[in-house]
């Protein structure tokens, strides 16, 4: 089975929610739609589910036009941000509800419900009402209900966003495992780059209703086509510094000079924007050509297992990342290093012209 979106547009009272969206989803594929809040992710899912109709464009399933087909007649399942369950039904009845409308024998329903409940580890909660469950358990119930009927299209709209981070971490890993056992096309929206990376598969980066880039998740992460994609697909935010290339040397910030390596040596002189991911600012010198930046810590943000060091340089707000948890006082001085192999280079039109090659990053360690 395959789903194809052709020229999808959606405008609601003059506001453009989606513009010229063309996408193909293959059977059994895992797809992430990444974008900030209001980028049009939910609109896209709702159109795919058949809950909303596109203003313009068609949706084909296996080559058949289903644009106007009612949601009841489609083989879809959806999980929302909010924990949506039928409050008056028990967990068991909730999970069984999509099967009851399809006329499957009772014993078969029972088997399927217990199966999926086991997979999501809510098999001991089947007699409870949703209101008696924790947020995590409620969302597990909603996911179980979406999974139980083996829909061909499984849509998940930021399903983990309202959970505590520990629960989010656990469910993410479990979901990945569960998805891999399914034949359905999974479409999963998120605002979080780390979540997108973890789920892998294909990614579509959406911004203001338009597709900025699609491809395999790793390829897009390594080669963001534009400044905007790099921005959306980085957490903490990727650092941008305006500058120029002069005689095979990148010059940016307060006179930071980095001699270019490899293919980048072929770039013509001129103005460029340089992008450096936060984890590519190093606290120690790795190579003889590394450039050095002196900075004052503005805030050290501690995110689980990393420390994000926020600092200012030449009027830009930058972030560096250090593994582990380390105390930094506001205002203390740090020295950071930039390696030539870790630069993203964008032309004045904000399009990517060179990216660090994975080989080069790996080679550095040896």
């Amino acid at each position, binding site marked *: 089975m395959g789903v194809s979106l052709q020229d999808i547009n959606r405008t609601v009272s003059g506001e453009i929610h989606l513009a010229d969206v063309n996408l193909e989803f293959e059977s059994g594929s895992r797809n992430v739609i990444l974008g900030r809040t209001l980028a049009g992710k939910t609109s896209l899912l709702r159109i795919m589910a058949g809950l909303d109709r596109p203003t313009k464009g068609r949706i084909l399933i296996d080559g058949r036009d289903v644009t106007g087909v009612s949601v009841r007649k489609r083989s879809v399942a959806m999980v929302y941000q909010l924990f949506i369950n039928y409050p008056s039904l028990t967990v068991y009845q909730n999970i069984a509800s999509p099967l009851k409308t399809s006329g499957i024998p009772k014993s078969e329903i029972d088997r399927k419900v217990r199966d999926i409940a086991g997979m999501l580890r809510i098999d001991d909660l089947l007699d409870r009402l949703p209101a008696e469950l924790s947020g995590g358990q409620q969302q597990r119930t909603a996911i179980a209900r979406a999974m139980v009927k083996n829909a061909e299209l499984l849509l998940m709209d930021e399903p983990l966003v309202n959970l505590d981070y520990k629960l989010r971490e656990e469910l993410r890993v479990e979901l990945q495992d569960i998805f891999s056992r399914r034949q359905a096309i999974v479409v999963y929206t998120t605002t979080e780059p780390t979540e997108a990376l973890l789920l892998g598969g294909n990614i579509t980066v959406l911004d203001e209703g338009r597709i900025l880039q699609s491809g395999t998740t790793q390829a897009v992460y390594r080669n963001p086509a534009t400044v905007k994609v790099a921005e959306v697909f980085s957490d903490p935010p990727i650092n941008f510094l305006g500058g120029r290339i002069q005689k095979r040397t990148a010059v940016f910030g307060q006179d930071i000079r980095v001699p270019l390596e490899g293919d980048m040596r072929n770039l013509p002189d001129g103005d460029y924007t340089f992008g450096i991911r936060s984890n590519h600012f190093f606290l120690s010198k790795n190579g003889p050509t590394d450039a050095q930046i002196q900075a004052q810590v503005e805030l050290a943000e501690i995110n689980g297992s990393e420390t994000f060091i926020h600092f200012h340089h030449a009027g830009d707000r930058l972030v560096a*990342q250090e593994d582990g948890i380390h105390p930094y006082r506001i205002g203390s001085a740090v020295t950071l290093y930039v390696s030539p192999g870790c630069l993203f280079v964008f032309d004045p039109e904000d399009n990517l012209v060179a990216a660090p090659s994975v080989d080069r990053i790996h080679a550095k360690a040896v």
Partner: protein
Amino acid sequence: MARIELNEIAHSYHPNPADESDYALKRIQYVWEDGGAYALLGPSGCGKTTLLNIISGLLIPTRGKVLYDGIDVTGLPPEKRNIAQVFQFPVLYDTMSVFNNLAFPLRNRGVESGEVDRRVREVADILDLTPYLNKRAEGLAADAKQKISLGRGLVRSDVAAILFDEPLTVIDPHLKWNLRRKLKDIHEQLKLTFIYVTHDQVEALTFADKVVVMYEGEIVQIGSPQDLFDNPEHTFVGYFIGSPGMNFLDCTLEGNVARCNGARIPLDDGVAAKGRNAQGKIELGIRPIHLQVSSVAVDGGVPANVKMVEDQGSYRLVNLTLDGKTLRARVPESEPIPEDQAWLVFPLEWTRLFADGRLIK
């Protein structure tokens, strides 16, 4: 400004608590030093909000005493304790202007109007609220509203401590950073005692100099963020701090070696000696970031199988199986990952032993 002392505090919501399990808080003993930035961190239901309400005076504990600068205030209501509190969602006087909102606590205490004006402007300046002073509070964005709530605490020159109850819950993610920074700045500037309740490790670890981790009504560890990460004193802290959390393996000790099923993991002599004397269930713990993965057999390496690799961009999470147990290792972007067979090295200085959940030390 005050030093807050919790003396043998316990609290139960049952009228006649029978046993341990009826208590939402079990015997808390702690001193909050004047001018500290504290965070109370724990999952929902761990008792952190109960503890906060006992400090603020909204709840009277079943047992124990609360002392402010040595004076017993256990029975005093919040208004007599000189504390300020910022709630989960912004609590404002909708019909008043921002200025009047900020002035409200001072006017209620009969401060003369010149002084009120001076204090309000000072605080508005610190919080970047000056342009809004004459606007009605109702129409402002959530982050500005939350700053007003904080401002109502800051205007009072006599305030002993400011308590925060998950104050960033309703703030847009991209604005949280600004507010966190602001809080940190204000603390540096004013040196007030801040107590910050949250279930979010990022907020707690970023904000606080000292983090109090709570679990099932008990304080399981108090320490600096780095302490909690490097030296968790309880398996819960190991699990809760860091993403992903610590790896734990059930094991038995044989001399200086921990046996986990078939695998033999060498330990530090001192740790192993103490471990042999400990009672209860023994677990070995190591953080994914400290677990080293090698593609060739190395001295002291434990063979394991690579099951799955999750590429996180700046690093990879490698899921390995070691005699049926799953372990996770965090490998930097620049390091290679073995295809199938791997050898795990447990660095002695980062390998911890826990007995019944508590660190053996």
